């Protein structure tokens, strides 16, 4: 057998042929690879470059500093303070988040509720995002955590900024507060800041109303990140826009006195500049410390706030609605004079009672002293707060003309103050009753309204607006925000009230005599300092109807009843009597007692306010307020229509 034969040749040929074929196949594969390279790198290269850049660069949000809130003189009412906080990066918590929280809990106090919230926050964020575990720590707590840091993997100590309210609960109903972002908040707001861990947003008051302005806009740092999201290096930074600063019309000094005077009563007081509507003080008690919400309210704190019958969460000035009681009588008087019924010669004789239809209505004097006021003109009726006079007069004027006059004074409609949740109160008319109850207006309804009871309700803010309008003769509306971010809050020009000067003069005269003439219902609480005299009107608002039987038994004496059933005590006033500057309303819920503490506190606040005279002091706000300069006609009009102060005891 030969070593090599034809079979060898045959297979060599086959091998060569097939090798060439495979070579061709390999060439084709290489062509495919090259083609694919062309496709990815040249044809689609630009698109992939963008994607690679998206991978590489990540934007980290920077929370801008929240804008401060100042009073009219630049006193900081809301600012930022150092916030010692502890953060947890879940991916670095080598023993798991639950374990880490337990360990931290041994160093500082962490409730189960807090732990659940932290777990939730961690679940909502990427593993490398630091999530706040505890904030607003004391220096002691903070140093304790720092000391234990080596045993707390994933824990970071951080010095941040947090909202602070230096005056605590004093301004809570104006400023509101900030608190953590809720899931519902995120739904309605696509600001990227909303998802920032530890972010706070305004939940009430100015903080809520102007939240987007105060919040500022998110800054961003462009950072290079790796595939796990860890920052490799910074590429650039945009600090964002700091929140805008807000100047209020409030004078903190007056505010402090008002708040102090109200004390722990369930009460409200508001002071307003009658010429331009600036709210000088706005206090509603009891309040609560807004810092609680920032730090995180405990369950028991929240429980206490919500169940208290003093309603600390409610801003009673804007959202508390009360029957105005006798403080409504000046409005009725105005309507009667405007209607031409209460002419200077018009008098009504009060015998203590009046019978309309088959109902007998008592004057308060009858209930208290069992006699009437005798013959009264409109000013005397205001001075004595004679119910019978107003029953009779209102009956003649009719509800719709009262409605008309009251609406001119701003009742029955929101004032438009820059605070959320304002209530509009109710100023009824016959048309309103027909629409609402499908019933005709009854004369009895008119009589109730005549003394500020029945359907009519108002907020203290509406009452102070009414008082300011009566005092100035201008259609002023309350405003509490002067400027935002250096820009004036635009508002319509103050126009003259559409009421005759004569009517205003006579109503003012009546209110003057309430305080400054012997026998006036508030004579004992007048301001005696010359030049600072106050005019006003007291009021008592029944929270429920008394039966004839109760009247007979004298059970209407407030001290004999449960607190919840006692009458509200109201007072409206303005000062000085000549050329008025300020109007005030004070209300103590269920506080109608002979001592009239609500008038006394109004007197003290008004005296202090006039002596201090914040409207004349140079304000600190950064823009000049052209609207606050009185229009030329004010001076003359005020002089012609202002009554002379009546000598005390005259």
């Amino acid at each position, binding site marked *: *057998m*030969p*070593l*090599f*034969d034809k*079979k*060898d*040749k*045959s*297979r*060599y040929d*086959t*091998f*060569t042929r*097939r*090798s060439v074929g*495979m*070579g061709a196949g*390999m*060439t084709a*594969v*290489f062509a*495919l*690879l*090259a083609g*694919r*390279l*062309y496709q*990815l*790198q*040249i044809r*689609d*290269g*630009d*698109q*992939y*470059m963008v*994607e*690679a*850049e998206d*991978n*590489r660069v990540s934007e980290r949000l920077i929370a801008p500093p929240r804008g401060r809130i100042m009073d009219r003189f630049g006193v900081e009412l809301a600012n930022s303070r150092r916030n010692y906080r502890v953060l947890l990066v879940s991916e670095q918590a080598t023993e798991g988040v639950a374990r880490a929280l337990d360990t931290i809990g041994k160093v500082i106090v962490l409730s189960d509720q807090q732990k659940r919230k932290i777990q939730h926050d961690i679940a909502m964020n990427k593993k490398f995002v630091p999530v706040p575990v505890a904030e607003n720590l004391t220096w002691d707590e903070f140093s304790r955590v720092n000391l234990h840091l080596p045993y707390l993997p994933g824990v970071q100590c951080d010095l941040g900024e947090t909202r602070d309210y230096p005056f605590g609960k004093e301004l809570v109903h104006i400023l509101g507060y900030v608190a953590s972002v809720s899931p519902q908040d995120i739904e309605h707001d696509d600001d990227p800041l909303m998802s920032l861990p530890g972010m706070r947003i305004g939940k009430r008051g100015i903080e809520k109303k102007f939240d987007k302005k105060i919040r500022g806009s998110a800054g961003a740092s462009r950072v*290079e*990140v*790796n*595939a*796990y999201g860890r920052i*490799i290096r910074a590429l650039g930074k945009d600090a964002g826009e700091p929140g805008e600063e807000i100047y209020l019309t409030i004078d903190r000094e007056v505010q402090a006195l008002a708040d102090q005077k109200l004390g722990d009563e369930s009460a409200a007081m508001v002071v307003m500049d009658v010429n331009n509507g600036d709210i000088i003080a706005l206090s509603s008690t009891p309040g609560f410390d807004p810092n609680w919400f920032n730090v995180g309210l405990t369950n028991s704190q929240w429980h206490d706030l919500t169940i208290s019958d003093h309603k600390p969460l409610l801003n009673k000035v804007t959202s508390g609605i009360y029957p105005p009681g006798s403080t409504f009588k000046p409005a009725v008087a105005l309507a009667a004079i405007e209607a031409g019924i209460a002419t200077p010669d018009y008098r009504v004789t009060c015998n203590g009672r009046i019978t309309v239809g088959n109902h007998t209505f008592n004057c308060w004097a009858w209930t208290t002293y069992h006699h009437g006021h005798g013959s009264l003109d409109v000013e005397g009726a205001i001075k004595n707060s004679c119910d019978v006079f107003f029953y009779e007069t209102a009956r003649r004027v009719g509800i719709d003309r009262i409605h008309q006059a009251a609406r001119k004074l701003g009742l029955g409609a929101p004032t438009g103050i820059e605070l959320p949740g304002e209530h509009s109160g109710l100023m009824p008319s016959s048309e309103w009753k027909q629409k609402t109850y499908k019933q005709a207006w009854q004369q009895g309804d008119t009589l109730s309204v005549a003394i500020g009871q029945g359907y009519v309700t108002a907020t203290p803010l509406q009452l102070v607006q009414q008082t300011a309008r009566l005092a100035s003769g201008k259609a002023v509306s309350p405003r509490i925000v002067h400027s935002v971010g250096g820009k004036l809050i635009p508002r319509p020009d103050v126009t003259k009230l559409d009421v005759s000067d004569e009517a205003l003069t006579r109503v003012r005269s009546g209110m003057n005599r309430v305080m400054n003439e012997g026998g006036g219902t508030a004579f004992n609480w007048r301001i005696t300092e010359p030049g600072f005299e106050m005019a006003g009107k007291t009021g008592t608002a029944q929270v429920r109807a008394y039966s004839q039987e109760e009247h007979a038994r004298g059970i209407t004496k407030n001290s004999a009843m449960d607190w919840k059933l006692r009458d509200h005590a109201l007072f409206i006033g303005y000062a000085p009597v000549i050329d008025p500057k300020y109007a005030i309303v004070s209300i103590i819920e269920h506080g109608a007692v002979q001592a009239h503490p609500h008038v006394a506190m109004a007197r003290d606040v008004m005296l202090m306010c006039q002596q201090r005279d914040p409207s004349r002091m140079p304000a600190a706000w950064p823009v000049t307020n052209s609207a606050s300069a009185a229009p030329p006609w004010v001076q003359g009009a005020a002089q012609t229509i202002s009554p002379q102060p009546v000598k005390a005891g005259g």
Partner: protein
Amino acid sequence: MSLRPYAADKRTLSFADKLLEVNWGLVLLICMIGLAGIAMLYSVANAHFQPWALRQIGHFTLGLIVMLAASVIDIRVWMSLAYPAYGFALLLLVAVDVVGHVGLGAQRWISLGPLDLQPSELMKIGLVLALSRFLHGKSVEEVSKPVPLAIGLAMIGIPAIFVVLQPNLGTTLIILADGCSLLFLAGLSWWWIAPTLGAVAAAVPLAWRFVLHDYQKARVETFIHPEHDALGKGWNITQAKIAIGSGGVAGKGFTQGTQSRLNFLPEKQTDFIWTSVCEEFGFVGALALLVLFAVVIFYGVQTAMSARSQFGRLLAMGIILNFFFYIMINGLMVMGLIPVVGIPMPLLSYGGSAMLTVMFGFGLLMSVHIHRQVEIPRHSGGII
């Protein structure tokens, strides 16, 4: 060309003769590719020699020595060692199932001192050697006869089964491709080939149903719809394509590849090293490297066809096809044309086993080249 006994003087090449005969051009090509790989390993480690580049220099240097050593050994010696090498590789392959430790979810390694040995890599060389040896003794007609064909298929199938059980789908595919290519080159009849191809086509759905592991199926599914799971299993493919595409024409520059530097690329130092080449050197650089690969393969095919012994021809072609299949599967995989299977890019990817077997393979290829004039009778079994 007359069939005559090989010349006696060709039987005894001196060592110096052999060194002169070494194709230094090919050595240069391999060094260029190897250095490119080391440079990329330096780059993907954020411009550090640790942990990969320095060790890869060691692997490559050792590989060069192994290659040159293998090249000067007489081809008939290799022929004699073919079956023992195959047996040894098979033994290791069985052993790996017993003592191998887990790497990337599959048992593939045996630790031999500092080197993690991958028997499946050795098996590729062992199979090419043994199959070339076996087919060397078979004429075209004999190759297609049932008994020799059965033996040949068993030589392919037995290691393939052990490798697929590891499980290592990529290497199994390469073993099957290597073996079947050799049968084809040895002259297997089309009467066998055509029906087999048909049967394979029919078997694919069955394999999907009963043979493939879940993670292998997941790879295929991910490949077909990478966008369904762009952050999960589709991540690898998506990020690899971004890396390649973002290189553009000229690339981002050496060590400037953001995708690899920032760890967006998975297994960037091993299976996905090619994407870094594309990212940093762009279309120009990647194409240049492809050309280098193509030239090496062209040289290998030429060597095969110039050898005078059937063993040498089959061995050379087997070696170069093995090299080609690596490139093809890795290239198609990282560029998103086939599902992800664990196959490194030869000479570029980090890893001692793969480097040594590839270099050893080139050594055998050079041995074929140096001893291309050696004629070996069909019934000879080597010289040992």
